[in-house]
C-alpha cells in the first residue's frame, strides 16, 4: 500500500507572483483590475504568464468517470489467466493488506493483441484508439490516494481529497489566462449529467470565481443564462446592453480612473460577444459530412452520438483558444447506465461505455493531428482510479488505487511509449509509481508553468496545486 501523502502545506519560500501582486494592489478598485480581467478572460498572453517555454498551449482532459479498468484495456496481464480463480495473496507484489476479503483473481473477458509499430498490447475494447497507440504515451503506474469516488475525483482534479480546492483547469487559467477573446478559458462538458462530486470537479476553490470551469451544456443554450428566457426580443436585448453601456460610461465619468468600473463595462462587452460566439462554437452544422462521419455524430445510439458531438465540440473550443477542456464520460451513480463503475459486471459495463467513447476519441486525435493542433495540445485519457484484478461478486471489479493506467498524447509528450508498470497481476504500481501530484506537475510543466512557483495565498500558505509534492514525469516528455 502506498504511503498516505499529506499536501496541506508547502515548504517553499514565499513567492509573490505577478498576479498576486496585481491582486493585492487592488485595494478595492485598483487601476490594474482591467488588465487583470482581460488577462484572465480575453487578452492573448503570448506565454506572458509562463515560467518557461511551453510545449502545450492547451489541455484536453478525457475523463472516464468512476474508474475505468486498466487490466481490461491497456495494461495487459496474461498472468491473470494463469491465476484465474486463485487468491491474490502472495501474487505479484501483494502482501496481506486487505481489511475486506478480496475476491479471486479474474482474467479479462476481453481479447488482447499487439498494435502499432510500438507493439502495444491492448484489448479489443478500443478498436479505433488502438490504431493510434503510436501517438500515445501510456503511464501504467498511476497511484491514487482515496478509494471512494468523491474524494478520489477531488484528489484527481484539485490535489486534495476534500472539496473546496481549485481544480487543475482553474490553476491553468489562473497561470496563463485565456487565448480567446470571446469564450471562457476553461470549459467542461459531460455526456450523462454531473459526474461524482458535481461542480467541485471544476471549481475555483479559493481562487477568484473567474477561474472556475464553465459548463457547456449538451443541449439548449451552450452556457447557462447565455440568452434571456424565450420570448424576449433580440432587439430589446441588444438595446438593453447599449443603454447599460451608456449609463455606465456616464457614471464612470463621475468616478474617473476606477479600474474596476471600467473592467465591469468590459465584462458586459465580453458577455455580449459570448452570446454570439458560444452558439457558434456549439453549432456543428458547418462541419463537413466527412468530419461528422469520422466522429460518429450520427450514430444511431443516442448516448454514443452525444459523446461524439462533445468531442467535436471540444475540438472547436480548443481551436478557438480555450485553454482547458474537460469532457466527462459518465455521470453519478444514480442513473443507469451511469458510468464506468463496473462493480457487478465488467463486460456488460465496459463494452457499451467503450463503444461510446472509442470512435470519437480516436477521431479527435486524428482531427487535431491533421489540423496541426496535436503538437501543442496535451490530451489526457484517464479515470480517477483503476479496478482490481480480482473479482467482485462473480463478474465485476472493485476500485483499485494502488495501480492504474492513463495515456497522454500531443503537447510535448513522447509518442509510442510506456512508462512505469504494475506487478504481474496489475494490482500495484511497482515500477516508477506516479502520484496525482506528479501528473499535475507534468500538466503544468507542458503549459510552461513551474508547479512550485504557481502559487496563491490562502489561509496561511502560498498554496500550490501540488502541495509539497509533485515531480514532473520527464521521461514521458520529449
Amino acid at each position, binding site marked *: *500500500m502506498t*504511503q*498516505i501523502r*499529506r499536501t*496541506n*502545506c508547502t*515548504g517553499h*519560500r*514565499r513567492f*509573490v507572483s505577478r498576479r498576486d*501582486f496585481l491582486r493585492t*494592489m487592488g*485595494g*478595492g*478598485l*485598483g*487601476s490594474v*483590475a482591467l488588465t487583470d480581467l482581460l488577462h484572465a*478572460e480575453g487578452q492573448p498572453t503570448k506565454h506572458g504568464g509562463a515560467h518557461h517555454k511551453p510545449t502545450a498551449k492547451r489541455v484536453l482532459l478525457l475523463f472516464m468517470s468512476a474508474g475505468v479498468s486498466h487490466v481490461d484495456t491497456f495494461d495487459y496481464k496474461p498472468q491473470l489467466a494463469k491465476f484465474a480463480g486463485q487468491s491474490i495473496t502472495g501474487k505479484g507484489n501483494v502482501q496481506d493488506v486487505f481489511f475486506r476479503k478480496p475476491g479471486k483473481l479474474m482474467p479479462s473477458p476481453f481479447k488482447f493483441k499487439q498494435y502499432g509499430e510500438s507493439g502495444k498490447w491492448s484489448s479489443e475494447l478500443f478498436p479505433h484508439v488502438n490504431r493510434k497507440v503510436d501517438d500515445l504515451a501510456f503511464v501504467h503506474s498511476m497511484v491514487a490516494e482515496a*478509494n*471512494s469516488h*468523491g*474524494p478520489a475525483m477531488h484528489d484527481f482534479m484539485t490535489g486534495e481529497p*476534500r*472539496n*473546496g*480546492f481549485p481544480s487543475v483547469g482553474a490553476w491553468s487559467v489562473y497561470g496563463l489566462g485565456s487565448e480567446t477573446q470571446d469564450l*471562457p478559458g476553461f470549459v467542461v462538458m459531460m455526456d450523462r449529467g454531473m459526474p*461524482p*462530486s458535481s461542480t467541485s470537479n471544476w*471549481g475555483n*476553490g*479559493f*481562487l*477568484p*470565481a*473567474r477561474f472556475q470551469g464553465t459548463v457547456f451544456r449538451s443541449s439548449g443554450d451552450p452556457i447557462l*443564462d447565455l440568452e434571456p*428566457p424565450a*420570448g424576449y426580443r433580440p432587439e*430589446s436585448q441588444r*438595446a*438593453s446592453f447599449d*443603454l*447599460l453601456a*451608456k*449609463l455606465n460610461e456616464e457614471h464612470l465619468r463621475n*468616478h474617473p480612473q*476606477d479600474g474596476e468600473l471600467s*473592467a*465591469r*463595462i468590459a465584462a*458586459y462587452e465580453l*458577455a455580449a460577444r459570448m452570446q454570439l460566439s458560444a452558439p457558434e462554437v456549439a453549432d456543428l452544422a458547418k462541419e463537413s459530412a466527412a468530419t461528422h462521419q469520422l466522429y460518429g455524430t450520427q450514430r444511431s445510439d443516442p448516448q454514443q452520438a452525444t459523446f461524439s458531438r462533445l468531442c467535436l465540440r471540444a475540438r472547436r473550443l480548443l481551436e478557438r483558444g480555450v485553454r482547458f477542456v474537460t469532457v466527462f464520460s459518465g455521470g453519478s*451513480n*444514480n442513473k443507469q447506465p451511469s458510468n464506468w463503475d463496473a462493480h457487478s459486471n465488467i463486460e456488460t459495463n465496459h463494452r457499451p461505455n467503450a463503444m461510446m467513447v472509442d470512435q470519437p476519441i480516436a477521431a479527435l486525435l486524428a482531427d487535431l493531428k491533421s489540423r496541426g493542433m496535436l503538437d501543442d495540445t496535451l490530451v489526457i485519457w484517464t479515470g480517477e482510479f483503476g479496478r482490481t484484478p480480482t473479482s467482485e461478486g462473480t463478474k465485476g471489479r472493485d476500485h483499485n488505487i494502488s495501480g492504474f493506467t492513463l495515456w497522454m498524447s500531443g503537447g510535448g509528450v513522447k509518442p509510442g511509449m510506456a512508462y512505469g508498470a504494475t506487478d504481474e497481476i496489475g494490482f500495484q504500481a511497482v515500477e516508477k509509481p506516479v502520484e496525482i501530484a506528479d501528473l499535475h506537475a507534468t500538466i503544468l510543466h507542458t503549459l510552461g508553468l513551474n508547479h512550485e512557483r504557481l502559487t496563491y*495565498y490562502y*489561509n*496561511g*500558505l502560498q498554496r500550490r496545486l501540488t502541495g509539497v509534492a509533485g515531480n514532473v514525469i520527464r521521461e514521458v516528455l520529449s
Partner: protein
Amino acid sequence: MRVGTGPEVLLLGEESLRLMNRIFSINTFRFVAWTAVACLSLILLPPAIGADGNQEEYFRTKVEPILVRRCLECHGADRKGGLDLRTKATAFKGGESGVAIEATKPDESLLYQYVDSEEMPPKKPLSAAEISVLKRWIADGAFYPDKSLDLFAATSDHRAGHDWWSLQPLKKVVPPTVRNSEPVQTVIDRFIVARLQQHGLSLSSPADRRTLIRRVSLDLTGLPPTYEQQQEFINDQRDDAYGRLVDRLLASPHYGERWGRHWLDVVRFAESNGFERDRIRENFWPYRDYVIGSFNADKPYDQFVREQLAGDALKAENADQLIATGFLVAGPKNDVGTVSELERLQTRQDELDEFVTATSTTFLGLTSGCARCHDHKFDPINMRDYYALTAVFSGLDRGVNSVASAKDKAARATAVAPLQKLMKGTKTQIDLLLQRARKRFLASRRERKPNSLRPAVTATNNEDVFGAVETRFVRFTVTATTGNSQPCLDELEIYGEDIKSNLALSKTGAKATASSLLPGYPIHQIHHLNDGQHGNSHSWISNESGKGWAQIELPAVAKVQRVVWGRDRNGKYKDRLPVGYRIELSLDGKKWSAVSDSSTRVPQGEQTQLTNDELIAALTAAEKKLHASLIQTQSQQAARLKAIPPLPVSYSARDSQPQPAYILTRGNVRERGEQVKPAAFHTVKALDPLLVGVQSDSGPNRRLRLAEWIVDVKNPLTARVIVNRIWHYHFGQGIVNTPNDFGFNGDRPSHPELLDWLAADFMEHGWKIKRLHRMILLSAAYRQQSGYKPQSAAEDGANRLLWRMSPRRLDAESLRDAVLQVSGELDLTMEGPSFRLFLYRDGNVPDYVLLDEPGAETWRRSVYRFNIRTFQSPLMSAFDCPDASVQTPKRNYSTTALQALSLMNNRFTFQQSQHFATRVTAMAGEGLGKQVDVAYRLALLREPTEDQRRQAVSFIQNHGLFSLCRVLLNTNEFLYAF
C-alpha cells in the same frame, strides 16, 4: 515611500518584491523592526565579552541567536546530516561528517569550517561578524547550556519565533496627537491621520449624505436604504443625524443577518455534509439563527466564543448554548462508510484536523495544519502542540440533538394529545364518506361501457363538443392537474358552426381573462390564451396549485358548439396538464351552465386512482354538505396542531468518551508515537497551555477550558483577531489583511498600534461588538469620500493607509437581497428552515436538481438560503459566493463576463425585473416620465438627469418598462457601494 503601484514595479523580480516588503515592514512596524535592529547590532559591534567574561552571557546574547535563526531549522529536529544542535550532547557528538565542535579549536571544528568556507548555511552564508562570533565562542571553550535550544526562540528570515509580533502582549498605546485642524471624529482617526501624515497624505473630504447612507446601510444590514429613508437622512438637520442613523441600523434585526453572514463565512457554515454523498443537513439552521441572534443581542464576544466551543458544558437552561456548538461541526463530514480500519482511522484523523484547524484559525488567527506532519515551518507551533489540541476534541462527534427541555417536552405532549385524538376521529368520518363515494363511482363506471367514455386528456390537443348554444362567455375551470401543479393552457379555441373560424381570437375582438397568472414570466401571459400562437412560449399558467380558470368573452353573443384546447400544441411539454376540468357558458358572465367536463373522459393513469374531485362528485347533496364541514373542521384542527411549535432539534456537538491522542509520526495514522494530554498551544507564552489539559476531563469540559484559555485577557491573539475581522468587513481590508492568519505567512499590520489600542479597548469594555462598530463608523476615516486620487494612489496604491474609502461591489447575498428589495418582493421573514433553490432526492448519493422557477417562498434574504456544498446556485457562485467547504475569511470580488450574463439573463433577474416594473406602474401610473423617475428612485435612490429621463422614456416606448428595470439592476451605480 512608495507602497504601491506603477508598471515598473511589475517588472521587478521576486527578490525585489520581497525586499520591498521587508523595507515596508521595517520602516513601518516596530515589532518586526526590533529583530532587524538586533541583527544589525550583532553584526556591527565587536564581541564585547572576552574569554574571561561570562561565557553563558556571551552564548545567550551572541551565539544562540545565530544558531537558532540560521542553523536549527535543519540541524534541529530534522537532524540533517545527522547533526542536531539543540542539545549539548548531540552538538558535540556531531553528525555524519564528523565531530562538529572541538572546544577551543575553531579550525578543527567542522561547524566553524563549514560556516567559514561559506558552505553553510546554504544559499545565504553568515556575515563576517557572525562568523567571528562563532570562532571566538569555540576558541573560548564552546560553552553550551544544559537546557536544549529552541528553534522557536527567535524569528528568522523564514519563520516566526516566540517573539513574533502577534504573540506579544498587547501594548499600552497612547493615541498619537494630531493638529487641531485635522478632521478627527473618533480616537481611531488620530492613528489613521498620523500614519497618513508620515507619508504626506491626508483623509479625503467627507462623503455626501446620499452616498453615506447607502454605504453604511449596506455595510450594517446588507440592504440598501429606501428612497424615503435616504431623504429623511438628507433632511435631518440635527448635529447627530449620522450617529442616530448608525444607532438605528445597529438596532435593526437586519444587522444580525448581515454580520451573522460574515461569521457564517468564517466558520464554513453550510447545510450539507460535503464529500462524495453530500447529504443534506435538515436541522442545522438553528445554528444560523443562533449566530444572527447573538449579533443582534450584542452578545459579548468572549461569551460567544465559550458557547460555540463548549456550550454543552455550560450549565444553563438556555438551549441556545447547545445549538451554538454547531460551530464545531459546521465543516464537511466524510460519511462514506468503509470496512478498512486504516481508512476509518484516517477519516477520523482528518475530522480531528478539521476541528483543530477551524478552532485555531477562527479564534486565534493561527494556521496549525502544518504541525500535523512536522513542526510548523513558519510559526512556533510544534507537533506536540497540534496533537495536544486534537486531544481536546478526541471525543467529539456530531448529531441531531434535542434542544428541548423536559418541561418543553411535557408541555408539548399535553397540548398535542387531545388534538390528535380529535383529528383521528375527523379523518375516520371523512374516510367513511369517501369509501362510500368510491364504491358508488366505480359501480356507475362499470355500468357505462368503457367505449362510451371519451379519450383521456392529452397535452397536445383536446376537443369538447356540445349542442350549439348561444353564449357570450366561455369559461374553462381546472379542478385537477398532473402533480397538482399550476395548470397551463397554450390556447383556448372556440368554434361555432364554421369549423374553421376560431371565435376566441383576440384579433376578432374576444377578450381573455383568468383567475390568476404565474408571475415573472414573459412567456406565460393571459393574453396568450387567445393570441393564435401555440406552444409553451405563448401560454398561460395559473398561480394556483391544481386549479384556476381561464375565460373568453366574445365580442358579441354567438352560437358555439366546440371548444379546443391543449397544454402545448407543439408537444414538447407534458407537465401542468389539466386532467380535471369543466366548461361552462354564460350570457351575462353571472349565471353559468356547464356543457362539458372531464368526467366523461377515460381518467388519467390508474383507473382506480380516483381524484378527490371525482369522489366528491359522487356524493349526494347532503353528503357533500357534511363532507365540506368535516373538511373545514379538519383544516381547523390541522392549523391548531401546526400552531403548536415542534420540539426543537439541532445539528450540533455530541461528545462521547475522549479517546487517547498520540503524536503521529509524519501525520501517519499507522505510526503512533507518544501519547499526549490535552493542552492548548504553548505558542502563547503569557498563558499556561496545560491549564487546558486535564486527562480526566470530559470532552465538553476540555473544550470549556480551551475556550477560557482563548478568551483569557492575557491571550494576545483573540481580541486582535476579532477586532481585525470587524475592521476588515467595514473597510474591505483588515489592519492585518489576512484575517485568518496572524502568523509568518500572513500580512503585517498596517496600523499595529491602532490594532492593539482597539483590542485593549474592546476587552476593557466587555467585548461588545456594537460599540466597536460605532467607533469605527463614526470615524472620519469611514465617512470619507471614495474618489480616486492619483497622487495618493502613487504613494499607496492599495489604500492600506486609508486615504479614501475603497468602493466595493456588493457581495452575492447583498446583490440578490437588493434586487428583491427594489422589486418590492423581499420577504423579510426571519429565522426558521432555509429556503431551497433546488429539489432534493435522497439516495445513496443524493441528487440535487436546480429549480427552474423558484417561487415567492424563496424571496427571503439570502442568509436564509440553503447552501449545499457540492451544488452551487449558479447566480450566487458567479458572484463569488463560496461553497463553504473550507473557511472563507475574506471574500473574493471578481469581475467576469459570466456575472454579466447571469445578471442580465438569469430567470431570477427576469422575474424580479417584472415585479419591479409592476411596482413602478402601481406607484407612477401610466405616464412614462413619471415611471422613469420612480424606477430611478427605487433602484438608484435618485432622480434621473433630464437626458437620462428622455433616453429612458424612448427606451420604454420601444422595449417596455420591464427592460428599463432590468438595465437599472445591472448598472455599476447599483452594483457598487461608494
